[in-house]
């Protein structure tokens, strides 16, 4: 739709100079917190997310125990200063939904059946929000789980594609999300070819959907490489096949 008089794409370039299929600068580090069993800081451009993992450990409340696997607990939370207008610190309906969506994006890869009767707790803090926070959260949580030494079948990486001024674009930022026609966050375990998160907010034709999904895969592959590099740098002795 595009706000009246606002053009987000000119001469094939986006408002911040990126090409249609270009990611923002991606940066990642792990082990950024001392107390957590695993932690990571992930930046997609100005979007900054910290993830911390505690566990496997005894659950705080016994009633949630499962006899045959670990429960995964996940909280997606935005710091009150992370948004343009100050956000109330209490969990919004959006944060409650995304806590579930992010948890379900990680469940398929965690070998939770190795740790019955325990809890694996994932705490995500969005400290600066500029679009793509849920997919950056999945990426950060995946790294924090690896940093905590929790066995996984694969890493998960996420990115949002969008439709802006009629064009499909990779890694939408907040401005594009706000004034674009569609926003489609995707997360995958790339080596397994598993789609673990898929949402669409907006309208796409079936053909556009197919193309958008291909674009997402391309971004996810790139982010996945950075994830593996990041872990390799930290754990020199870890075998990661290139």
């Amino acid at each position: 739709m595009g706000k009246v008089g606002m053009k987000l794409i000119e001469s094939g370039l986006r408002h911040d100079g990126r090409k249609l299929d270009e990611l923002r600068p991606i940066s990642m580090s792990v082990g950024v917190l001392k107390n957590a069993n695993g932690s990571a800081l992930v930046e997609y451009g100005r979007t900054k997310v910290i993830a911390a993992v505690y566990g496997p450990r005894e659950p705080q409340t016994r009633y949630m125990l499962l006899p045959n696997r670990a429960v995964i607990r996940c909280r997606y939370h935005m710091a009150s200063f992370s948004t343009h207008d100050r956000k109330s610190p209490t969990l919004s309906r959006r944060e409650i939904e995304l806590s579930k969506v992010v948890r379900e994006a990680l469940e398929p890869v965690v070998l939770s059946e190795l740790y019955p009767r325990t809890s694996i707790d994932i705490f995500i803090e969005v400290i600066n929000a500029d679009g793509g926070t849920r997919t950056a959260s999945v990426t950060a949580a995946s790294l924090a789980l690896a940093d905590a030494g929790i066995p996984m079948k694969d890493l998960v990486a996420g990115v949002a594609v969008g439709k802006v001024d009629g064009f499909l674009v990779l890694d939408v930022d907040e401005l594009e999300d706000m004034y674009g026609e569609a926003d489609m966050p995707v997360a995958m375990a790339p080596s397994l070819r598993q789609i673990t998160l898929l949402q669409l907010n907006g309208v796409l034709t079936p053909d556009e959907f197919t193309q958008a999904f291909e674009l997402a895969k391309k971004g996810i592959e790139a982010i996945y490489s950075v994830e593996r590099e990041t872990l390799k740098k930290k754990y020199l002795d870890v075998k990661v096949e290139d």
Partner: protein
Amino acid sequence: MSTTPSSEFFIPKLKTDIIISMLGKGLRPNGRKVDEIRPVTIIKDYIPNADGSALVKLGNTQVLVGVKLEIGTPFSDTPNEGNLMVNAEFMPTASPVFEPGPPDENAIELSRVIDRGIRESKAIDLSKLAIISGRKVWNIWVDIYVLDHDGNLIDASSIGTLAALMSTKLPNIEVKDSGEIVIDKSNKGEPLPLSKAVAAVTIGKIGNYLIVDPDIEEESLLDSRLTVIVDEDGSIAGLQKSGAGYLIEEELPTIINIALSKGKEVINTVRNIVKGSK
């Protein structure tokens, strides 16, 4: 905190194996075909005090949707548009495992998926819902009450929401010289301006099998599911993967195709029932 749910409806391994082997032959435990939706019944205008309402059954799943219109203030960035608010409550009447309390993550997710489908497809023409430009607009409250849970709450809620919106009448109002607005509910006004119909179609995945409109027994076996919001033009107006499992790339075209075809069917069904029962 979102937490891995304990499986509420534990099904023995043997039964699971039997069901998967049935699915291998294209059969479902409930006798439906894999792409068959349960029968839909709709009673519209069920709630006299609502401006629009529908009591919907999708098989044995039962959902009551009420629409209320109130005079509100527009957001500063959309001064000439009405506001849409969708809320879902999983009533404790609906299932032995539902307890009274504020909506949990499932109810919130459901209401937000329904909300996004209506909002993004521009199903309601919000620009026709300003009363006084920049100052007074219609607030549209859609309240979804799940009364009986036999699976696939989201598709049932989507049908109920569509039927309730189709039957909603804008109250007659009078803007007084003082600027005060008086609502006259004594007789029904114009229909709510609907520009497009949308429907949610949920496809569940059990093992490598895909089934449409899973019932509660099937839901207990699902690895994951994808809800596709379909609009009457054949576009995709929303997606939501849920469940602790995954999808694989190759499944997407199949899912989308089934959803587009079933979504059209559902929209027609609702339209016929609502119009027909006039």
